């Protein structure tokens, strides 16, 4: 991308719209601090790279929360904007960005609105920015080692790894905090701790703690332990019946109290899987309603069309029962229905989905109920247990289950059923377009339902656990049972529960496996980044060294290299040498050397390794530099002159003089920025090719008196250039010609270069308008038409004499 013009309105230092032609190989912009020249740089940064570097480098970013991009005096209704015309791959492109609000934007390419500028096919990442702003020159050098790592990553294009690593860490935390995992972990840990405390099933405990988790190993360990307990090989699928039989055998030896046999509940796991599936169906239905609501056609209308065509008999309308539907009309109606076919299919899918939700809701409610005890039986058990002193406390506990715990559990199930019913009603109304679709509200209801379902299952599990505890307590006190049998009874009951809880082990295993994988991936990305950084830093260091040596030839204080800091920290060190002794440039370099180093870092990455961008822009590059260094910098710029557009901005008149002397005044397009007023900076074109001078004059010719005066000035300069170029075509030295006063140029052209009188008369006439005071004319008498004539005439003369520029 090579720049041709930039147009700015309402952005940073620019209030009124101003256009700055930039279609030249070497451009110099002079302006004191505060004159607005950096606003041009910021305009380019914001347009192409999304933000201004000043904000990115600021240590008080909060100050930039307000309207920092918009010019404070701009109060036009139209949006502020920045527009660049440039050459890209041989074609002219117009690229524009409107500022919307504080920091929003709209992007345009060739007048078309686009999402972003990726369609240009050039790198728009910060490390490719061909602009070196003031703060950036020292920013890399004068920073902490860990911040320098980030900067190096950006320069080398490796910051994707930092971003990826951070996002992986956040994802790992997110997984660790997921409800499903935390719940399963709690259940698994409770089961394992219980086993450890009781010193039961040690091989199962060991298998459950292995990393990576292997569910097969846990199942094998459990089956092996079961075989020992039961006395024969038992697969988990048959274990339930076998364990129940074992418990009955033990109970038969018990002088058991009346009531014990009544304390039975549904064994096996709670319907967690069914609950998950129901919630997934509900959320799926909500999403489908959302998609349907985005389709503009009324659902009822589509159903009406569909039904009407189904009921159509021949040409008879199903409504008026008259033959009013012609063949063409029927065709039209069918075509209309076809265009809405996707809506119809969506509606059919939704109807099925809602039926599934209804069926699953019912099944779930029934499944939950099954896990609650039979209240009449339990009440009877409580009556039978309480009279005997030995079982009195157990009887009271059963009574509490009957009077408090079960009703509370039933209440939670009722709440869940009510919520499910409510949701189904909403779905039915939505299907018949009897209510507005509110996705946020529905998702909120689904979330509350999920919480209530979980709460219901927790309460039911607590009831079951309490009943088991009571049973164990009764058996534990029962006469006729050995300690061994009592332990076995408790163990067998626990194993029955454990088999149902193996799902939690699987959930924990699956999550921990992925969390472990993320940890490994973070480490691998880290190692890879360091390795790649080390490799690329070697190449980068040698290029930086080359530039540094060019800026500081023959000096005994030289930059050596950038290296990763030893160890695991993500830090990068700079190394330099002073008379053969290693030094730290951050602490030992002078200001000028620091700037040299900053510039040396810029050139390899943003110039040499940056083929997408055909310009170099340096904003005040000579901070603290002396003349020698300034000249070396210009040497470097001249090396790139052939293949890059060079744009330099400086507040130093001395640097500008050196710049002009080195590049040649005749080769530079030069602007001067001066502090204007609330409308923006005053930009004057000091010198440049004839074409640019005349374009500028043309823009100003119809303006205010002051603007017309400026146009006249540009026209005069264009005439000077014309004569320089004319005399150069006659073999005279251009550099010497530029040193001549402008009056002498015309005289020389006439006297020694054969410039014809007829054309001289035209030149003289142009000069009358361009410099009226020198011709005894009142500048106020010069009209736009006069200037326009002068501009056109000079263009014609330039063409006639084949003068370029």
């Amino acid at each position, binding site marked *: 991308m090579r720049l041709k013009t930039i147009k700015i309105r309402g952005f940073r230092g620019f209030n009124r719209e101003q256009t700055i032609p930039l279609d030249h190989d070497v451009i110099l912009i002079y302006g004191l601090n505060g004159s607005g020249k950096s606003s041009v740089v910021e305009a380019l940064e914001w347009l192409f790279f999304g933000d201004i570097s000043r904000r990115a480098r600021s240590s008080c970013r909060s100050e930039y929360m307000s309207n920092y991009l918009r010019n404070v005096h701009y109060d036009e209704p139209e949006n502020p904007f920045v527009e660049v015309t440039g050459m890209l791959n041989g074609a002219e492109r117009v690229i524009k960005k409107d500022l919307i609000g504080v920091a929003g934007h709209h992007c345009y390419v060739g007048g078309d609105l686009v999402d972003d500028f990726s369609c240009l096919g050039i*790198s728009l*990442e910060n*490390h*490719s920015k061909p602009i070196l702003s003031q703060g950036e020159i020292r920013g890399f050098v004068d920073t902490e080692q860990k911040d320098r790592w980030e900067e190096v990553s950006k320069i*080398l*294009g*490796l910051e*994707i*790894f930092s*971003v*990826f690593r951070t*996002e*992986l860490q*956040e*994802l790992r935390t*997110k*997984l660790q905090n997921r409800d499903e995992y935390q719940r399963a972990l709690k259940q698994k840990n409770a089961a394992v701790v219980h086993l450890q405390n009781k010193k039961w099933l040690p091989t199962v405990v060991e298998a459950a703690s292995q990393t990576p988790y292997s*569910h097969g190993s846990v199942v094998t360990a459990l089956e092996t332990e079961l075989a020992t307990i039961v006395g024969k090989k038992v*697969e*988990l*699928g048959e274990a*339930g019946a076998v364990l129940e039989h074992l418990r009955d055998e033990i109970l038969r030896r018990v002088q058991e109290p009346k009531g014990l046999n009544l304390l039975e509940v*549904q*064994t*096996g*796991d709670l319907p967690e*899987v069914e609950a998950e599936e129901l919630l997934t169906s509900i959320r799926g239905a909500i999403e489908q309603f959302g998609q349907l609501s985005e389709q503009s056609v009324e659902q009822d209308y589509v159903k009406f069309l569909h039904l009407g065509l189904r009921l159509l008999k021949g040409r008879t309308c199903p409504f008026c029962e008259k033959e009013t539907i012609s063949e063409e009309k029927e065709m039209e109606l069918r075509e209309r229905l076809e265009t809405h076919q996707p809506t119809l299919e969506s509606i059919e899918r939704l109807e099925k989905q809602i039926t599934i939700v209804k069926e699953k809701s019912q099944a779930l409610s029934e499944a939950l109920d099954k896990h609650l005890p039979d209240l009449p039986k339990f009440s009877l058990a409580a009556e039978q247990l309480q009279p005997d002193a030995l079982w009195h406390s157990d009887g009271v506990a059963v009574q509490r289950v009957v009077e408090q715990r079960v009703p509370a559990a039933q209440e939670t199930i009722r709440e869940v059923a009510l919520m499910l019913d409510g949701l189904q009603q909403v779905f039915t109304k939505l299907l018949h377009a009897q209510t507005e679709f509110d996705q946020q509200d529905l998702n909120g209801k689904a979330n509350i339902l999920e919480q209530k379902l979980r709460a219901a299952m927790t309460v039911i599990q607590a009831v079951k656990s309490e009943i088991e505890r009571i049973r164990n307590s009764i058996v534990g006190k029962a006469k006729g049972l050995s300690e061994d049998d009592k332990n076995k009874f408790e163990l067998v009951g626990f194993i*029955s529960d454990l*088999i*149902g809880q*193996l*799902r939690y082990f*699987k*959930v924990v*295993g*699956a*999550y921990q*496996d*992925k969390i472990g*994988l*993320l940890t*490994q*991936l973070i480490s*691998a*990305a880290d190692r*890879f980044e360091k390795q*790649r950084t080390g490799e690329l830093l070697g190449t980068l260091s040698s290029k930086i060294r080359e530039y540094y040596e060019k800026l500081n030839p023959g000096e005994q204080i030289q930059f050596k290299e950038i290296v990763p800091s030893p160890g695991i920290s993500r830090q990068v060190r700079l190394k330099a040498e002073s008379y053969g002794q290693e030094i730290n440039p951050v602490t030992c370099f002078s200001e000028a050397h620091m700037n040299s180093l900053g510039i040396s870092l810029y050139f390899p*990455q943003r110039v*040499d*390794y*940056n*083929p997408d961008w055909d310009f170099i822009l340096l904003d005040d590059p000579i901070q603290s530099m002396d003349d020698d260094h300034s000249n070396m910098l210009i040497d470097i710029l001249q090396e790139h002159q052939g293949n890059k557009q060079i744009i330099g901005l400086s507040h130093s008149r001395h640097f500008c003089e050196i710049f002009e002397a080195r590049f040649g005044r005749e080769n530079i397009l030069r602007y001067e920025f001066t502090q204007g007023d609330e409308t923006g900076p005053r930009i004057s074109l000091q010198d440049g090719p004839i074409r640019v001078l005349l374009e500028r004059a043309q823009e100003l010719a119809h303006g205010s008196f002051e603007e017309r005066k400026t146009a006249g000035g540009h026209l005069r300069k264009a005439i000077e250039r014309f004569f320089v170029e004319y005399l150069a075509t006659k073999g005279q030295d251009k550099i010497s010609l530029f040193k001549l006063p402008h009056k002498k140029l015309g005289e020389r052209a006439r006297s020694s270069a054969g410039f014809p009188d007829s054309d001289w008369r035209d030149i003289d006439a142009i000069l009358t308008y361009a410099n009226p005071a020198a011709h005894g004319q009142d500048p106020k008498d010069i009209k736009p038409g006069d200037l326009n004539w002068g501009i056109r005439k000079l263009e014609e003369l330039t063409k006639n004499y084949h003068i370029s520029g």
Partner: protein
Amino acid sequence: MKRPTKREMLSDLANSLDNALARELVQKYGERFNISDVEKLLLAKIRKEISDEAQDNQDQGLSGL
């Protein structure tokens, strides 16, 4: 000399990994540089592993003991 793109960098990282799922995660991220794509992939894997167990439970007749 052109700097490798983000995609190329991630592709190199993916190729350096032994673990197939880790490679898949890096490649998925490299498609849109969006970590939620990686999250969705991981959760899908977790779901599959858990539901394989639920299927095992059904096959073994463990539900409704």
